[in-house]
C-alpha cells in the first residue's frame, strides 16, 4: 500500500502576521481539522491506510508530517509561521497547542515589541528584526522542505504589525527566486473604528499602504471587515458557542485580548478554511487559478460570503438552503446599507466553492447560481463553481468569493482620510523610512485602481 501512496501536493504555508493574524491563523487550522473529524489538538496518523485517507481528504498541502513520538503514530503539523513583533501571541499558541504546533520555536518568528501602530515602523522592523536576523529562507525551508506553491496570510490592516509585516512579507515572497512562483493569498481585516483599539488616521494610512502592496504582490487579496464579522458573530452567537475555539483552551489569565474576538475569529477561520477547501481537497481547481481570475479585475479584491456562517445540517446541498432560510449566512464585508447589489457592474464575478457530498448535478449548479444571483447581479458565465467533497458527516457549505466593483467605493473614504492625515503624521513615517513620495504613489495607485 505504501508504494502506491499518492504523491503529496506542493505545500502552502500559512504565515500569520501580527496579533490578530496569529489568532485567526491558528483558529483556521483548528477549523480545518475539526471539519474532517481529526483531533484539532494533536492530529496524527495511525497507519498507512489512514495516511492514504488523510492525503485523499486534503493532502499535506497545509500540514506536514512531524516527528513520530509514539510508536505507530505520525503527527501532522501545520505548515504555519506565527509572526509578530510581540512574542506573546505566538508563545501562547505554542504553549496551548504543544502537540499541534509540534515544531515549537520553528513556528514562531518574533521581534522586540510592538510597531507603535505605525506601518512604516513595522515594515522597517520586519526587514531588520525578521528578514535579516532570522534567515527567512532557512525558516521557510524548515517549515516546508518541499518547494512552496502558496502562501496564505491572515492579518489585521489597521494596526502596526499585521499590515506592514504582510506587506513586507509578500514583497519578499514575490521578489525572491525561491518563493516567487508561489501564489499569495491575503486575508486582510479592516478594523471597526470606534470599537477596535486602533488610531483612526494612522490606521487609514496603514490601510492604504497595505492595499497598495496587496494590489502589487498578492494574487488573491481577500478582504473582510470587523464590522460585519462582529455583526455576524453576534447574530450567530448561540451556534458559535457550540463550536470549540482556540480561545477556550488558552490559560484564562493570559488570553491576550482574543476573548472578545472569539466568535469573530471563528468566522474568519471558517472563511479561510472555505477558501483552502478549493485546493486542498480533491477539486478541479488549483490555488494558482485565483491569480488568473483576478489578474485583470478592478478592483482585484475579493470579499467572502459564507453560507452557512456556522456549519449545520447534512452533507447535501439542501442544508445550505436551510441555512439561508435560518439566516445562518453572511457577507463578511460591509458594502453599506445603501448598497444595491442588484445594480451590479458588468465585470462583477464570483467564485463559489461548493462543499457537499457526491456529485453536483446540473440542477444543483443552477441552485448555486440562483443563490448568488438573487443577491448579486452577476452573469452565469462569470460564476465559477468549484466542487469540493464533504467528508462523511460534514455539513455542506458554500464559500462565495465575490469580486464586485462596489468594494472599491467602500474603500475610497479611507484613502481620502489617509491623504488628509498624511501631513500631520508624516514626520513619524519618514523617520521610519517611508518617504512622502512613496506614500503619495501608494495613494495614486490605490485610488487609480479602486475608483
Amino acid at each position: 500500500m505504501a508504494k502506491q501512496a499518492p504523491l503529496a501536493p506542493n505545500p502552502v504555508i500559512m504565515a500569520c502576521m501580527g496579533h490578530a493574524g496569529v489568532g485567526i491563523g491558528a483558529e483556521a487550522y483548528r477549523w480545518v481539522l475539526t471539519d474532517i473529524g481529526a483531533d484539532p489538538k494533536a492530529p496524527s496518523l495511525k497507519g498507512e491506510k489512514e495516511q492514504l485517507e488523510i492525503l485523499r481528504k486534503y493532502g499535506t498541502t497545509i500540514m506536514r508530517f512531524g516527528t513520530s513520538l509514539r510508536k505507530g503514530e505520525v503527527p501532522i503539523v501545520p505548515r504555519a509561521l506565527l509572526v509578530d513583533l510581540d512574542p506573546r501571541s505566538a508563545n501562547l499558541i505554542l504553549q496551548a497547542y504543544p502537540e499541534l504546533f509540534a515544531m515549537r520555536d520553528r513556528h514562531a518568528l518574533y521581534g522586540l515589541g510592538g510597531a507603535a501602530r505605525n506601518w512604516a515602523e513595522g515594515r522597517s522592523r520586519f526587514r531588520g528584526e525578521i528578514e535579516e536576523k532570522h534567515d527567512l529562507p532557512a525558516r521557510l525551508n524548515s517549515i516546508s522542505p518541499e518547494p512552496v506553491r502558496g502562501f496564505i496570510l491572515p492579518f489585521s490592516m489597521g494596526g502596526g504589525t499585521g499590515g506592514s509585516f504582510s506587506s513586507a512579507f509578500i514583497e519578499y515572497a514575490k521578489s525572491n527566486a525561491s518563493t516567487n512562483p508561489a501564489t499569495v493569498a491575503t486575508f486582510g481585516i479592516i478594523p471597526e473604528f470606534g470599537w477596535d483599539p486602533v488610531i483612526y488616521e494612522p490606521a487609514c494610512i496603514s490601510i492604504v499602504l497595505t492595499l497598495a502592496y496587496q494590489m502589487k504582490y498578492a494574487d488573491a487579496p481577500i478582504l473582510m471587515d470587523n464590522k460585519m464579522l462582529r455583526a455576524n458573530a453576534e447574530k450567530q452567537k448561540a451556534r458559535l458557542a457550540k463550536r470549540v475555539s482556540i480561545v477556550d483552551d488558552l490559560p484564562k489569565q493570559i488570553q491576550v485580548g482574543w476573548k472578545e474576538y472569539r466568535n469573530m475569529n471563528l468566522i474568519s477561520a471558517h472563511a479561510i478554511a472555505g477558501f483552502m477547501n478549493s485546493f486542498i481537497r480533491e477539486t478541479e481547481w488549483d490555488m494558482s487559478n485565483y491569480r488568473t481570475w483576478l489578474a485583470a479585475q478592478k478592483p482585484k479584491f475579493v470579499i467572502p460570503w459564507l453560507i452557512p456562517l456556522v456549519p449545520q445540517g447534512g452533507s447535501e446541498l439542501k442544508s445550505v438552503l436551510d441555512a439561508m432560510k435560518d439566516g445562518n449566512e453572511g457577507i463578511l464585508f460591509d458594502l453599506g446599507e445603501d448598497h444595491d447589489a442588484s445594480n451590479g457592474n458588468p465585470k462583477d464575478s464570483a467564485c463559489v466553492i461548493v462543499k457537499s457530498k457526491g456529485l453536483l448535478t446540473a440542477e444543483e449548479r443552477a441552485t448555486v447560481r440562483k443563490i448568488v444571483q438573487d443577491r448579486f447581479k452577476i452573469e452565469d458565465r462569470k460564476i465559477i463553481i468549484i466542487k469540493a467533497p464533504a467528508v462523511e458527516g460534514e455539513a455542506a457549505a458554500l464559500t462565495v468569493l465575490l469580486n464586485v466593483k462596489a468594494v472599491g467605493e467602500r474603500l475610497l473614504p479611507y484613502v481620502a482620510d489617509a491623504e488628509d492625515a498624511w501631513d500631520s503624521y508624516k514626520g513619524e513615517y519618514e523617520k521610519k523610512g517611508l518617504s512622502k513620495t512613496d506614500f503619495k504613489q501608494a495613494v495614486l495607485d490605490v485610488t487609480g485602481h479602486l475608483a
Partner: protein
Amino acid sequence: MNLSELEVIASELIEQEKMLDQIDSDLEFVEGEFKQQPKRTGRDKKFYSLIGIEWKDSGELSQRRAALRDDKRKVQQIVDEARDKLVKGFSSGELVVPLDPDPVREEEGHLFKYRANASYPKAVQELASLLGMSVPLRIDEVEISPDRIRATESDPYLAKEEVVNAFDKIRKTVALKLRGSRRSQF
C-alpha cells in the same frame, strides 16, 4: 476643460496666494500692534495731558486691521474658488491635455511635446501641489513636466496608453479632494 485654461487659473491662484501671504504678513504685524495699543494709548494720553492738548484716538490701526481682514476674506475666496476650479478641472473626465499626437523617440522611451511648443508650468506646479508631489510628476512610468511628458515605453502605442493611464490615475486621485470636501460639509 483644456490644460491651457487650467494654466490661467493656476497662474491666478499662484498670484492670489502670494497676495494672501502678503496680507497675512501685514495682518500679523497689525494684530501685534493692536495688542500693544492699550499700553501705548495709556502712555500717549498721559503725554497729551501733560502738554495740554486734547488726545484723540485716530482709530487708524483698527481701520487698517478691518481693511486687511476684509481683503483677506476676499482673496481667500478667490483662492478657494480657483483651487476648486483646478480640482474640478483635473478630476474631470473631459480634461484635454494638448499633446502632439506623434511622440518622439527618446532613448528607450517616448517624448510627448505639448502642441505649438506650449508649456504649462503653473498648471503642472499646482497639480503637483494637489497631489502632494514635486515637479516633474512621476506617475508610474510617466514623467509630467511643464513643457513635455515622457513615457518609458518603447512602443509608441503603449506609450500613449501609459499617458492615458497616468492621467486617469491623476483624475481619480484629485477627485478624492472633492470627496473629502463633500465629507467636511457635514
